[in-house]
């Protein structure tokens, strides 16, 4: 993917550097891509990510760079921060973007110094909510590093228990509607989706997106879901990063690997998913009957609150666990009530906030260009 330097771009073209933390899963990258897709075609867009999944952005035509996370290196925190700060500062010098958009809940020390050393570049913090109670509070002070704090809204925002929900002053966010990369109108047909994913054309299929697990162990969430679905005659599709693919070898499941998978959601009749920001909003906004199984081990994301709220509104099922024999009843209920739950979720959909977010980012970029 050829890199465009500042000198090559037309003078009027805005330039945006999209920076994502590594996080778990694809959430940060996907959200940044949702913004990037909706920026004008003339905008110079470049991705710098701490996630090893970053090459997927090439499918959107975006140049990318990888910066290993602290966890990926094992360096001392102070050593890694120095590495991060230098890489970011040099990237800013080379690309000279009008605006940097950081998506993450923990802006790294060094980001402030790099921005201070490059004062022309404006900065936007894309900060999702639903933080667990009392967590991450000290990070709110870092709002002052940014020209704009942008919050991709949450369909469960009414019960957001976290410190970011009622942040005031400089820490207050400009909240937009929930952000997803794909809109319902962009979904491929069921037939095309199944062809694209290499899935059987006929028969019910369920997407199981619960992270890595043991497909053959019913004491495991993934294994329990798979067994219950098979018992009801529903084919099992699992999302698996290449590193985990071996765990599913020999199992009677379909591995689905496509980015963005959500554009082919019509392939699935049901979903059993952990309600991280992306999976939650993709399932509800794209109309897939879903049972949410919250991952309680997240350090910050309150998946329990998100899933319970969706259940209380009649948009989806929420269960604490599928193990211990619980999965059968959940799948049965999903098969009978799933369609009406999904319709209720669609009826409550406030629309995609990605366009408004892109407009805000572009406005911030123009204010830098006008400096």
């Amino acid at each position: 993917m050829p890199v465009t330097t500042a000198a090559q771009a037309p003078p009027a073209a805005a330039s945006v550097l999209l920076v994502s933390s590594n996080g778990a899963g694809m959430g940060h990258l996907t959200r940044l891509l949702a913004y990037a897709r909706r920026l004008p075609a003339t905008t110079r867009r470049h991705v710098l990510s701490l996630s090893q999944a970053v090459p997927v952005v090439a499918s959107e035509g975006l140049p990318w760079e990888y910066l290993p996370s602290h966890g990926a290196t094992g360096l001392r925190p102070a050593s890694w921060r120095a590495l991060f700060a230098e890489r970011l500062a040099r990237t800013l010098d080379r690309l000279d973007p009008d605006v940097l958009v950081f998506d993450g809940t923990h802006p790294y020390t060094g980001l402030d110094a790099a921005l201070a050393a490059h004062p022309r570049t404006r900065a936007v913090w894309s900060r999702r909510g639903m933080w667990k109670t009392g967590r991450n509070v000290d990070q709110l002070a870092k709002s002052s590093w940014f020209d704009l704090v942008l919050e991709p809204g949450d369909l469960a925002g009414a019960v957001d228990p976290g410190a970011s929900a009622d942040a005031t002053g400089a820490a207050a966010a400009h909240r937009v509607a929930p952000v997803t990369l794909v809109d319902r109108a962009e979904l491929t047909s069921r037939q095309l989706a199944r062809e694209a994913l290499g899935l059987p054309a006929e028969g019910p299929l369920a997407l199981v997106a619960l992270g890595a697990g043991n497909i053959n162990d019913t004491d495991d969430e993934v294994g329990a879901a798979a067994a219950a679905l098979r018992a009801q005659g529903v084919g099992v599709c699992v999302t698996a990063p290449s590193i985990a693919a071996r765990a599913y070898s020999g199992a009677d499941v379909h591995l689905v690997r496509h980015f963005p998978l959500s554009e082919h959601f019509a392939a699935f009749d049901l979903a059993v998913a952990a309600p991280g920001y992306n999976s939650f909003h993709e399932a509800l906004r794209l109309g897939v009957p879903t049972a949410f199984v919250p991952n309680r081990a997240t350090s910050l994301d309150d998946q329990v609150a998100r899933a319970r709220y969706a259940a209380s509104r009649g948009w989806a099922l929420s269960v604490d666990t599928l193990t211990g024999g619980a999965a059968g009843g959940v799948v049965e209920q999903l098969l009978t009530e799933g369609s009406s739950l999904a319709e209720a979720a669609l009826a409550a959909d406030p629309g995609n906030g990605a366009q408004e977010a892109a407009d805000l980012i572009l406005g911030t970029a123009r204010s830098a260009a006008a400096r």
Partner: protein
Amino acid sequence: MSGPSPRTRAVQQRLARTAKRMPGYQLLVTEALPRVRRNPVLSDLAWRVFAPRHGAGQVDVPLHGGRHLVGRDLSLLPVVGVVALGADEDGVDRLLDQLADLQRTHRSFRPVLVLDLAAFAAVRSHGYVVEHVLARADWPPEDPTGWERYLAERLAGLTDHYQLWTMLDAGPEGLGPRDRALLAALADRLPEDLDVRVAPAAPDDPGAGHR
């Protein structure tokens, strides 16, 4: 290599924050300490009193060293940059197998891969650290010397941040005979009592069965 526990790290972070808020901290960091470092008498005194360790196998550099070695002193193994620009997927796989084999044979180094190919999954399966650099082909042709400068800056930064003991170039067949011999010779420079062992090979581990 295992770092401090989350609890220990939280305590460290709290202490660091408290120290940074203490009156005079900025003056100490920006004025006093640089003067002490520039003073030859005080520097010599500090070296005599604290006798900092130096040399291969003496300096502690926390860094993931891969799945093939274990032991208490892994973080003392020298870190070696391995630059493999232009390698395709098969070339990267061959190089990774070769590095795993050399690690198991000599127990003398930990690699940091420098690639211009997105081969993250392959590198991750060995547990090595990987840095990605932009490929020359992706650099704007209007700036013909820019890529050389960019690469030089990146390699200089990596040498510094990862405290590399040396940096080696890998070709289509991986490391050449001289560099393989260098890694073998490095083993003789390490302290004899270093606790670094070959990890028991799991059946599906990459590199298993090489020895």
